[in-house]
């Protein structure tokens, strides 16, 4: 439905007067130049991408014929040139400054690769990324857009995963992954702290987005897999858990210390979410279950997402509430299949399965608004 059609519908329904609709329409038309500038950015972006691809192709075709000193000299000239252009635009706002900043960061990564190639340097990969993260952190904190913060945090996550998978330190990959998860909590503490902070808001928002993505969809999915596994290295796992548990305590402290700066119900719900998710993935690693525990796993999973739903309502985040309730509904369907197993695939089982799925969908559709309202009540 076009915007003018919507306006006409609202005028017809008596929500707007014809004058108000005309004023809104005129305002939107005047705002159009801003949208056109984005179209211009898009066209310019395509042109720059084509130019860059052409230059890269030319360089790549003659790469082996370019001597190492020339490669290094050109690299430093380009890196310093982009850095100089960024310095000139340091006080400005807008796409130009942020593009230069991100280009400077990506060029540093390319430079690390170039040095490694010229001097045949050999590593597991995470050392080079760690060097890049250290060099780029100050720039990331000076960025005025979200792109640099997201890029840095994605780089951090990739570095942690490569580090966990690398065969160094005499520690198993699972234990290293558990240890690395402590960083998720520290970023969650930074992102969820609602009090006064000197950390740039874009970095805080990006830290909140990524840490919650790791704790909720990724963490609950991976945690569910753990409940079906067998782990015999309990002592080693407990030692590896020290860092993430400490991170969880820091996150809860950050949330409870934010009282007065955010809705109290939201803060308690988020604290409950952090504790529940930590217990969820920790339990199967330290308690040697005799087999899969579908009901306990599903119940714990639902508790985490219930906390997310309460937090969403307290914050007025309708999309998160809908997502949490859909995930809970899907988990009910999954646990039905987990519990009844092959029986669910028989003729009667399929009829029952269809009934369960339709029933869950109907309950969700019928009661989600009622649930949201009841959670909103003081």
């Amino acid at each position, binding site marked *: 439905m076009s915007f003018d059609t919507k306006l006409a519908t609202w005028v017809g329904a008596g929500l707007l007067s014809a004058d108000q609709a005309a004023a809104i329409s005129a305002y939107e038309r005047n705002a159009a130049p801003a949208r056109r500038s984005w179209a211009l950015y898009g066209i310019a972006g395509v042109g720059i991408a084509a130019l860059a691809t052409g230059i890269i192709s030319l360089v790549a075709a003659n790469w*082996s014929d370019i001597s190492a000193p020339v490669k290094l000299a050109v690299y430093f000239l380009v890196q310093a040139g982009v850095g100089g252009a960024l310095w000139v635009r*340091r006080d400005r706002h807008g796409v130009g400054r942020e593009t230069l900043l991100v280009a400077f960061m990506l060029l540093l990564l390319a430079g690390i690769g170039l040095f490694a*190639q*010229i*001097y045949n*340097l050999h590593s597991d990969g995470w050392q080079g990324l760690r*060097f890049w993260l250290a060099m780029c952190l100050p*720039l990331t904190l000076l960025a005025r857009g979200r792109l640099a913060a997201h890029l840095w945090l994605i780089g951090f996550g990739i570095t942690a995963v490569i580090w966990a998978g690398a065969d*160094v330190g005499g520690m198993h990959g699972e234990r290293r992954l558990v240890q690395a998860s402590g960083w998720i909590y520290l970023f969650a503490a930074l992102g969820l702290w609602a009090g006064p902070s000197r950390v740039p808001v874009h970095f805080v928002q990006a830290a909140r987005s990524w840490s919650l993505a790791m704790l909720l969809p990724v963490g609950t999915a991976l945690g569910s897999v753990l409940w079906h596994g067998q782990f015999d290295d309990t002592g080693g796992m407990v030692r590896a858990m020290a860092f993430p548990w400490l991170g969880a305590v820091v996150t809860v402290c950050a949330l409870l210390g934010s009282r007065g700066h955010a809705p109290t119900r939201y803060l308690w719900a988020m604290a409950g979410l952090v504790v529940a998710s930590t217990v969820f993935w920790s339990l199967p690693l330290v308690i040697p279950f005799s087999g899969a525990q579908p009901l306990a796993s599903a119940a714990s999973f639902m508790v985490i997402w219930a906390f997310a739903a309460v937090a969403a309502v307290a914050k007025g985040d309708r999309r998160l509430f809908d997502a949490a309730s859909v995930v809970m509904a899907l988990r009910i369907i999954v646990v039905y299949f987990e519990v009844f197993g092959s029986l669910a695939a028989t003729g009667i089982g399929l009829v029952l399965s269809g009934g369960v799925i339709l029933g869950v969908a109907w309950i969700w559709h019928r009661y989600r608004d009622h649930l949201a309202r009841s959670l909103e009540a003081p």
Partner: protein
Amino acid sequence: MTGTSRLHSMWMAGAVGFPLAAMAVWLAYVAYGSGGAPVTLAVAGFDPRDLLSGHFLTYRVAYGADVCPASAPKDHAVCVCLNKGEGQRFHTAAWFGACADAAASCADMLSGACRNGQFVAGIERFYFDERYADKLRLVPPDASITVGLRGGQGTVTGMQVGGVSLEQWLEDSH
């Protein structure tokens, strides 16, 4: 210029200057290390599939001894004292063990660690031109590497096949 603006400029100068300086220092460090005492080590074929590394030839360095026996502690620093005997073409391990026990008198010491029963010193790959990717799916026979040694750290500075540089060997046999 206001105080806030001056502070912002200082931060930005540091944020742009610090990576440039760090890259320059790293380059100087690597270049200095590669200019150290050259040693020549024989290399043997190894599984060359290294999908993440592009056109790098990965190989196993032949030290002439089992530097990492099964009893060797995992990931502990291990040092190898290299020596080239009379009439030998390549350096081999004259001594190896924990770096803490290494003799200061060793002129060509290479430090690394034992991983999966192999001594790893960061010299186990060599970049080559992608034009020769088909020809270098396997390490050529009679291959060796030249390594610059400085402070126990090794940097690969060249690769040879049958005594000639890899580039020359590829051109000659093309």
